[in-house]
């Protein structure tokens, strides 16, 4: 039926030879491909005074549900306007089609509209606030269950899924070493180049070593690594847990009687808490290496002098200040990733939204917590 070489545009002809009665003959193709022009065509038909309208569709070349619907709707509109209509020229198949359509009564069409209003804006703001509180509660909830699970797992180390932890560790730590090392190397190089450029003007370029050493060990190493881990592993956790929720795998775990926190959350967070200090250490070393190379080539400070100056500037304490923060950062990244992952609903859009939120929140909180640590260390005089 619909295998045409060319679409014949829909057309009509009006025959008003009998007074008070008009015959509307429709021709051409009335299919979904020509529905746009067919709809316009029907809108342009003017039948004003006549009371009886006879719609002849026998000369329509091909007709599908869209075309039939347009005819049916047109006919309905005429009847609603007080006219009598008659549909003629139906063969068996088209009769069935129209009988099917007659069962269908769509509601009056309303265009979708979105209005901007102050109330809507306030409502959205309020909802964001409520969501933030709920997020906090959800994190506390997971933290609490994590504590409870740890308490049950520690006396029975067999229940700790060591293989699962090892796999997660492999993914988040070993897999992340090259990129973390490369990024830190570049950052170390940039810091000492920039620092050297300005300190040179005062003739104290040797202090670049102090600057780079303290900055990298105390702050940059751990923050940059945490951000990288939030982007690499945090997003992966959210996506994994989220798609498991979409496929009802999380529900399956519940039903089998396994604890989601124990099976999915604990191994990931544990692995991350082991991984992040190690990655931070690698990042520190690699950044110092980058700084050393740049001071050597750009500021003509030989490696021996760099090491002597570095030894004077930093102590083990400086390194530990950075490393001590790492497990907390890992806990935050892991918790947020898992909370967001478990919040995913049925749609792929929600998976994307929660993965984004997971990374954004994790990076934000990493920086906030770093600030809190800075205050804390200042207070205890480290």
């Amino acid at each position, binding site marked *: 039926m619909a*295998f045409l070489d060319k679409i014949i545009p829909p057309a009509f002809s009006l025959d008003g030879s009998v007074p008070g009665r008009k015959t509307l003959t429709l021709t051409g193709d009335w299919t979904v491909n020509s529905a746009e022009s067919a709809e316009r065509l029907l809108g342009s038909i003017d039948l004003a005074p006549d009371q009886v309208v006879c719609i002849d569709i026998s000369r329509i070349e091909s007709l599908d549900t869209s075309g039939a619907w347009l005819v049916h709707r047109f006919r309905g509109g005429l009847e609603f306007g007080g006219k009598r209509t008659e549909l003629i020229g139906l063969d068996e198949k088209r009769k069935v089609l129209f009988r099917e359509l007659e069962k*269908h009564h769509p509601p009056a069409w309303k265009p979708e509209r979105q209005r901007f209003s102050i109330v809507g804006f306030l409502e959205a703001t309020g909802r964001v606030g409520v969501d933030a509180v709920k997020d906090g509660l959800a994190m506390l909830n997971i933290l609490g269950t994590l504590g409870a699970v740890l308490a049950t797992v520690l006396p029975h180390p067999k229940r700790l899924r060591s293989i699962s932890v090892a796999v997660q560790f492999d993914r988040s730590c070993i897999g992340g070493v090259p990129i973390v090392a490369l990024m830190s190397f570049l950052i170390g190089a940039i810091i000492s180049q920039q620092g050297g450029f300005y300190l040179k003007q005062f003739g104290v370029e040797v202090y670049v070593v102090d600057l780079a050493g303290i900055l990298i060990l105390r702050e940059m190493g751990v923050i940059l690594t945490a951000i990288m881990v939030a982007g690499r592993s945090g997003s992966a956790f959210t996506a994994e847990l989220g798609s498991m929720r979409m496929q009802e795998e999380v529900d399956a775990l519940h039903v089998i009687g396994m604890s989601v926190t124990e099976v999915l959350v604990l191994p990931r967070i544990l692995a991350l808490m082991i991984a992040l200090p190690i990655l931070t250490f690698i990042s520190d070393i690699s950044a110092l290496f980058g700084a050393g190379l740049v001071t050597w080539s750009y500021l003509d400070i030989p490696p021996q002098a760099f090491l002597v100056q570095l030894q004077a500037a930093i102590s083990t304490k400086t390194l530990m200040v950075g490393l001590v923060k790492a497990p907390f950062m890992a806990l935050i990244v892991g918790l947020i990733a898992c909370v967001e992952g478990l919040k995913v609903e049925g749609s792929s859009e929600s998976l994307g939204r929660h993965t984004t939120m997971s990374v954004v929140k994790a990076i934000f909180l990493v920086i906030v917590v770093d600030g809190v640590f800075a205050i804390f260390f200042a207070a205890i005089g480290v």
Partner: protein
Amino acid sequence: MSLAEPSIDDVVVRESAADDDIILSAKGVTVGFGTKIILKDLDLDVRRGEILGFVGGSGTGKSVLMRAILGLTPKQAGTISVFGHNLTGVSPVIRKSIERRWGVLFQQGALFSSLSVKQNIQVPMREHLSLSPQLMDELALLKLELVGLPQDAADKLPSELSGGMIKRASLARALALDPDLVFLDEPTSGLDPIGAAAFDELIKNLSETLGLTVYMVTHDLDSLHSICDRIAVLADKKVLAIGTLDDMMKNDHPWIKSYFRGPRALRRM
């Protein structure tokens, strides 16, 4: 795009007169993954207007063949022609116009999860045509009722629907552009007997009123009995037999025998 190339609206699928009755034909199709051959030298013809039921044991490659026809799985050899056009060498414009003329119901529904049911049905309309929003809404609701869903399902998200409703909504999307050929992958699996019977009835109705050609992968003996004009059996990497149900009942191949005259099949006689 060069100026000489015809636009999508000008091109309508043209067929050679000789095979006018064959809407889909596969010749010598070989599909494999790595060294494992799933289908070898497979031949299949689907006639216009018929409902072809496709059966075969689990894992024999029914879905693989469907995906190969649709161009989702690469084939190693053979030609597949749809509407008289060989799909391998066809230009993108003709390919697009062919894609407009077929509808696919995937096994799991494959509704877009972030769109509502109504938007799902409107996706092909928006992509290929420029209809007024009112007409699109009305047509979406019409298709929805045509497949037996209530109108209030229109604004639901796929995750809020039951399995049977997802099947129906997905069929509505497959029918959005009034296709000439629909591929159904196990349309009645997971439906209750009443729902499955209604679905069968619906497919038969659509096939009769719209002249639809249906390619249906199914395991449902009831569907095979009640609506299929012909049945094709896939086994030993090719189409082992094709014909009416009576032909199948007479066939003495052990697998066909146990499928159509096995304990489950005979119980419903």
